[in-house]
């Protein structure tokens, strides 16, 4: 067998680019000073961190000046250890912070990342009221339901920019308008979106935005929260007062430099890169959909350029992932068996897929480093693997699924 290796799980993480890696190195080995120290390599590190902050702010079109060399002037970019930490800081930090004037209601959606969902569930146990908005079969939130649920008691509306499993993009501008009309702030978990679609926090009316470097060729372990000027959050970590005192801890300077470089690269050539990625994804989707009893999940139009997600009837996702791995292909699934829980992913459930079908899900996410040859190899391998698994499936007979037999087992 020819040894292939195709990385098609770019929504899970991406490889650090050579330019990012080179930019980071000196801040680990040469200028390793603590930004809080007064001597030269400490101050150089502080300047590097602040330069990265400026790069992040510019990429999102945050208000200028994004950051002063004197960082006592509050900027809008808070570095965190991850996208999840940014989500936690945004939601809990806002509702428990001084900018929330006694409002006790939170609105989010059913397809959020667990960093948002579990934060909301924890707050619910602590007495907050939380509304989880439904989505349609394409994964778009119901704006009419948002209008109906929002009230003068709603503190924050948190809806992700683009979904990690199915790639559906939400109408951020419309959501923020509804939130603002009711005096609520708008947070978006843009971890999957930043670097893959244009984001303009001012034009889109975003008050709080979470992002993570490793989703766009930066390093792991560094994220950021955009927080509009004027909003004050309750700190998530107390300590030495770094990051406006909201996320204390000695700065991950190399990580910040990596994030700054990666976001600048991603945004500067976004149109070119993403139209290339989109072409690859369209080719992949067309090839995979030739497999019978296969369904595309998510919004075919309003979606991330690199995300293609499918469900195959009569097979189970974990087997699919392992067999594709044997072909050298990295991919992912929302099948329950991949996590050991009873239910398939909450996202696939929210878009209305029956359990039986949702177990056979496959997510392929492409990036700028993938090629057409790789896409063709993926199509060929997925076709072969699906055929192989169906051949041994008791719910597949005569070239079609036979799931009624399975449901007969139920009393």
């Amino acid at each position, binding site marked *: 067998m020819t040894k292939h290796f195709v990385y098609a799980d770019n929504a899970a993480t991406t490889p650090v680019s050579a330019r990012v890696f080179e930019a980071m190195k000196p801040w680990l080995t040469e200028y390793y000073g603590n930004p809080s120290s007064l001597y030269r390599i400490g101050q150089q590190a502080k300047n590097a961190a602040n330069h990265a902050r400026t790069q992040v702010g510019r990429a999102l079109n945050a208000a200028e000046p994004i950051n002063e060399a004197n960082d006592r002037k509050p900027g809008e970019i808070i570095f965190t250890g991850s996208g999840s930490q940014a989500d936690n800081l945004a939601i809990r930090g806002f509702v428990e912070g001084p900018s929330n004037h006694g409002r006790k209601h939170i609105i989010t959606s059913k397809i959020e990342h667990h960093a948002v969902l579990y934060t909301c569930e924890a707050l619910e146990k602590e007495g907050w009221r939380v509304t989880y908005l439904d989505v349609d079969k394409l994964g778009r939130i119901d704006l009419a339901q948002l209008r109906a649920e929002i009230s003068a008691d709603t503190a924050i509306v948190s809806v992700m920019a683009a979904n990690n499993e199915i790639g559906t993009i939400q109408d951020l501008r419309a959501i923020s308008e509804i939130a603002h009309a009711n005096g609520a702030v708008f947070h978006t978990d843009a971890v999957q979106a930043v670097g893959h679609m244009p984001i303009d926090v001012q034009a889109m009316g975003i008050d709080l935005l979470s992002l993570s470097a490793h989703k766009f060729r930066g390093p792991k372990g560094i994220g950021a929260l955009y927080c509009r000027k004027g909003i004050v959050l309750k700190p998530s970590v107390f300590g030495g007062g770094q990051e406006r005192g909201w996320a204390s801890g000695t700065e991950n300077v190399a990580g910040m430099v990596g994030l700054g470089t990666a976001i600048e690269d991603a945004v500067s050539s976004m149109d070119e890169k993403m139209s290339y990625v989109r072409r690859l994804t369209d080719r992949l989707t067309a090839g995979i959909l030739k497999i019978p009893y296969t369904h595309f999940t998510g919004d075919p139009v309003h979606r991330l350029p690199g995300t293609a997600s499918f469900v195959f009837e009569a097979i189970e996702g*974990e*087997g699919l992932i392992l067999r594709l791995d044997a072909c050298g292909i990295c991919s992912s699934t929302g099948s*329950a068996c991949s996590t050991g829980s009873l239910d398939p992913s909450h996202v696939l459930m929210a878009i209305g897929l029956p*359990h039986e079908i949702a177990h056979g899900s496959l997510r392929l996410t492409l990036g700028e480093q993938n090629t057409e040859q790789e896409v063709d190899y993926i199509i060929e391998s997925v076709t072969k693997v699906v055929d192989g698994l169906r051949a*041994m499936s*008791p719910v597949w007979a005569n070239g079609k699924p036979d*799931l009624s037999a399975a449901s007969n087992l139920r009393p």
Partner: protein
Amino acid sequence: MEYSEKVFDHFTNPRNVGELADANGVGEVGNAKCGDIMKIFLKVSDDGIIEDVKFKTFGCGAAIATSSMATEMVKGKSLEDALKLTNQAVADALDGLPPVKMHCSVLAEEALRSAIADYYRRIGKDPEAILGCSMDCAHCHETHEH
């Protein structure tokens, strides 16, 4: 979650996949909603030896590997010996399963017992007297733990 080399081997090259046209005992357990179904086909000789066995499985890597291993372990055995096969023995033969996947081995044991029960029923014997359970009640299909 990590699978042993043996699990990978049986998942990648499963033994005894397919159906038996002349099966005289067929058992199916699990359901598609939970994400795993196992179907086992037995060809039992007149003197109670499992001459041939095949399976079809809808499920994860561990479900396919345990089906493969369980069928290997009972091929050529008497029904009495086959009934002694425990899920733990199947898991052990695969050099262990991750804890969250142990239910797959339970499913393999149940599928086998269900096929044996079907064989006894077909030859006019009451499977409940032999197995202590008819293996066809909804309870058996529902109780495997996830």
